[in-house]
């Protein structure tokens, strides 16, 4: 028994070392930085300890803006992208012809470089002296005044960012959901058919519960991914996100570390820890809610 325990620990050691060195240690380090005021990388010195960094970050209008942006992004894109991908996957599963073609089409964004996709979105939304952009042209048909999506009002930019994010995260979800749908045993559907179950009820009472573990996985990773959003905003609005009012929390952390205003590792750490706390809370809530609604067989 003792021997076995020793062996078990030995086998676990590589994982522990990696997680310890690259996850736990940095996390603790960041936590420590976040309480050390005015830490300086070069001299490795700081003035004192306390909660000042948090107070600064929480009063910093740039951080609050980034927090607001991130929350909107999460609140809009996670539910919408999940619902859209579910709808697309269900549609894909119910067609036979051309399914592979459509599956490939829906998967393309996943293998396309973020910045390339950003460029495409610029072409779709950007106004130039020569053209109002494709989207504006289409909107114009319905009598809508041209909108400057890239450098215009806040809501317009936020809309583009949300659409972009949804579009970028959907392929993966569609892929996972189509395979989850395909793995639901056909006989459940046959049993339901014999009992004359309406389509909608089959979906709600059989399909949804059966794929609920997958759906739950997508929601959790979706939340985490959306909270960590940064590169998408850069792809659309360039590196000076503060000027564009489109910064995210991760963007704020980056700016504090390396940006034009960089060199504030303490503030960066505090912001990172706040983000960590938020994500942790949301994930815990997700787990609690899932207890009731997710069915593992």
């Amino acid at each position, binding site marked *: 028994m003792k021997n076995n325990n020793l062996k078990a620990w030995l086998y676990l050691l590589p994982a522990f070392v990696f997680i310890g060195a690259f996850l736990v240690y940095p996390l603790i380090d960041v936590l420590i930085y976040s309480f050390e005021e005015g830490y300086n990388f070069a001299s490795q010195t700081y003035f004192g300890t306390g909660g000042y960094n948090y107070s600064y970050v929480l009063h910093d209008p740039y951080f609050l803006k980034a927090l607001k942006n991130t929350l909107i992004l999460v609140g809009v894109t996670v539910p919408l992208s999940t619902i859209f991908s579910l709808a697309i996957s269900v549609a894909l599963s119910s067609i036979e012809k051309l399914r592979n073609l459509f599956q490939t089409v829906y998967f393309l964004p996943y293998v396309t470089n973020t910045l390339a996709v950003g460029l495409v979105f610029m072409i779709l939304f950007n106004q130039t002296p020569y053209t109002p952009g494709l989207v504006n042209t289409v909107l114009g048909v319905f009598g809508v005044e041209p909108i400057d999506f890239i450098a215009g009002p806040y809501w317009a930019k936020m809309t583009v960012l949300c659409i972009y994010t949804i579009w970028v995260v959907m392929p993966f979800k569609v892929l996972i959901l189509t395979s989850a749908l395909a793995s639901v045993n056909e*006989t459940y559907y046959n049993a339901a058919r*014999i009992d004359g179950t309406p389509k909608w009820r089959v979906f709600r009472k059989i399909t949804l519960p059966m794929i609920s573990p997958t759906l739950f996985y997508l929601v959790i990773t979706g939340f985490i991914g959306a909270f960590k959003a940064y590169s998408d905003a850069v792809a659309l609005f360039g590196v000076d996100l503060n000027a564009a009012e489109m910064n995210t929390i991760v963007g704020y952390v980056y700016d504090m570390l390396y940006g034009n205003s960089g060199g504030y590792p303490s503030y960066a750490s505090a912001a990172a820890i706040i983000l960590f706390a938020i994500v942790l809370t949301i994930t815990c809530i997700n787990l609690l809610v899932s207890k009731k609604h997710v069915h593992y067989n």
Partner: protein
Amino acid sequence: MKVTLKSLTKKFPSRNKKGEEVIAVNNVSLDIEDGMLIGLLGPSGCGKSTILNLLSGLLKATDGQIFFGDDDVTGLPPESRGVGLVFQNYALYPHLTVRQNITFPLENRRGKDKLTRDEMNEMALETARLVQIDTLMDRKPSELSGGQQQRVAIARALVKKPKILLLDEPLSNLDARLRLQTREEIRRIQRSTGITTVFVTHDQEEAMSISDLIVVMRDGIVQQVGKPQEVYDNPANLFVAKFLGTPPINVFNGEVRDGKLYIGDEAILDTSLDNCEVDVAIRPEGFELSENGGLTCELSRVEVMGRDVSIVATHTAAHTPTIRAIIDSDNVISTDSVRFDIKPSKMFVFDKSGNKLTL
């Protein structure tokens, strides 16, 4: 409800482009009287499930017709046919409790058939009592034994009072003891509801023990229809003879020469058949030890199984390496070779293409 199949055929398109299509059910005609339990019997892949699925409407017939009573239901979708189907793997919804599983079909009713929650629960409980699972109503399927799951599946099929109950290999997932118990149970439930039932199995013993009528199938074609004992005592062809009975029937190469039937060099009995090669099939209980019996076999071993003694022997003309004879246990065997008399009623003769010959 009386069920009639008229020249029913189901072809599946071939899986690859060039291959031939699969004829899963080939020109099957069948009359099932009201209230009967019929056993659809045959080896795996002979089209039993396909027939059930045609009856339930999950599959569309390629040709032929199906009547429930006097109504042609061939073109009706499953939900309009009023059948209850118990799937081989039960297909219980794993996330629903037993009660929710049983009420599931009732909740689909709309319009004037719509039931209140109380009515549904009442009906579910009533059906659960019939199959004796009324104490398990709040469990999930994963918390039930195989036999209990099987009963829930039957209850779910019965709760909507179907005209016809279809069971697809309902016992194949149960262990031997439970299988025996459950098949009695199915018989009891069928008797007490009087519902016309089609029971699919590849296990001949199972089919023989509970069916009013058995239908033996092979490669989509019906080989024989009849009461279990009749089919056993009077198989239409070699396939049916070999398929029914445990231990299986013993088959020998035989020959008709000058009005006598030979196995090897020994003449077994007189016959009016013309000279030809034949297969002679003898049920294990068709042998009788006899000092000067007509058939001589080399003894391999003797297995005593309670009341009966099973003699395992070899014979050069046998199709199988060993043959098996079952005799009463008060016979004592001490020699290396045994001689048997053959009971004519337990022996069948077939031509080389498997058709039955009358002696």
